[in-house]
């Protein structure tokens, strides 16, 4: 199997996804390679960046995408906010990645045990109110949880909610004018994924 290095050549969206999943396999085996790159790599990147994928993920300390996908400097354009929520500012970063960096692959990466999703579920089913700006974050998540069944056991409910939240962020990206345009051009692929926190395995949503 070819091991890809980061910034060799522009790749297709499918190539980019293969690279990420190969990297996740190395992470799981405990054989990381590119995330071990030293600062020397940086010297070659001073003129600019050419990442091959953009990831919208969560701020949770257990899901740093560069480690989970075993990538190096210059490989991934990363947006991380609690609950991988989409807002106009997040859309701005995504649009920058689409129009300026032209990364072929976009991924929304949720994760098991997401505290923001859990807090949103508590707000939805128990009426818990958070203070200050945290509440605004939850309000970004709530519309995506409409179909999560209150009757489900807690763990299953969380699993569904995490997936629903990834799909909700994907939908907001797809329905934006820029998202529609890029997809229509056929250059961009948007995929959803969930990271299993205990194992580090990334599961693609179908």
């Amino acid at each position, binding site marked *: 199997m070819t091991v890809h290095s980061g910034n060799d050549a522009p790749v297709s969206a499918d190539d980019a996804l293969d690279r990420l999943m190969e990297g996740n396999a190395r*992470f799981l085996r*405990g054989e*990381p390679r590119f*995330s071990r*790159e*030293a*600062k020397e790599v*940086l*010297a070659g*990147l*001073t003129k600019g*960046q050419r*990442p091959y994928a953009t990831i919208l993920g969560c*701020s*949770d*300390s*257990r899901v*740093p995408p*560069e*480690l989970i996908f075993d990538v*190096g*400097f*210059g*490989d*991934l*354009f*990363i*947006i*991380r*906010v*609690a609950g991988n929520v989409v*807002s*106009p*500012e*997040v*859309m*701005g*970063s995504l*649009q*920058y990645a689409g*129009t*300026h960096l032209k990364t072929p692959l976009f991924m929304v990466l949720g994760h098991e*045990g997401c*505290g*923001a999703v859990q807090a949103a579920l508590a707000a939805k089913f128990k009426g818990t109110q958070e*203070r*200050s*700006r*945290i*509440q*605004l*974050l939850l309000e*970004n998540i709530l519309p995506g949880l409409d179909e999560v069944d209150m009757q489900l056991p807690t763990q299953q409910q969380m699993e569904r909610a995490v997936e629903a939240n990834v799909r909700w962020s994907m939908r907001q990206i797809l329905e*934006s*004018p*820029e998202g529609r345009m890029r997809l229509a051009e056929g250059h961009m692929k948007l995929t959803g994924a969930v990271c299993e*926190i*205990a*194992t*580090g395995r990334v599961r693609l949503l179908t």
Partner: protein
Amino acid sequence: MNKRLTMFGVLVLLSCAALAHASGAGPGVGADEALSLLKEGNARFVSGQMIHPRQDAARREQTAAGQNPFATVIGCSDSRDVVEQLFDQGVGDLFTIRVAGNPAHADVAGTAEYGAEHLGVHLLVVLGHAKCGAVVAAVASVAEGKKAGGNIDFLIAPILPAAAKAKHDFPELSGDALVEKAVTYNVWQSIDDLFRQSPILRGLVKEGKLTVVGAVYDIATGQVNWLGAHPEQARLLAYASGPDH
């Protein structure tokens, strides 16, 4: 003899440091210790002596039940701004917020509040970086009246005041030199925006439970330069704005 004693002392210190790293910083790490951990990690990165701590299966199992990061970092989306690598940290160590241009709009402020209030993180770092594309765009917008269009204007909006201030304070500068000033001002602007929006963060800082500092990362060398607290922090803490008011 003295030299030997010194060497011995260094060895003892090093092994203590190694032990601390092996176990992970864990919960309840104070701001000073957290800052030291970040400085040590960046020194390892810059000198090419990274230890890549806490990235194995055992660490994933250990943190599966919950996270206890020792610092929150607000950085940029730039692919060269790999926060965990710059500070040579692992899984579960850093609560990391990244949006292009390290701004502090509502989602970022909410996420930072979550880190400080729910996770009990005592150190928050706003980390800018040299040659930041978002700052370059904001400076171009101020200097040349360029409009980016679409959602990119949302991205640039929080950075515009910093770009305008840099232009005002350094009228003789242009290009990279002006961007460099704007990068630092943008770090201060983000800290200002955090405090202006968040009674929670202001309260925690006043109680001595949270320290907020700025830093700028040189993408060519990997060196993180520490800026300390906002020069006008007392004024920022006196803000009365935010959703709880």
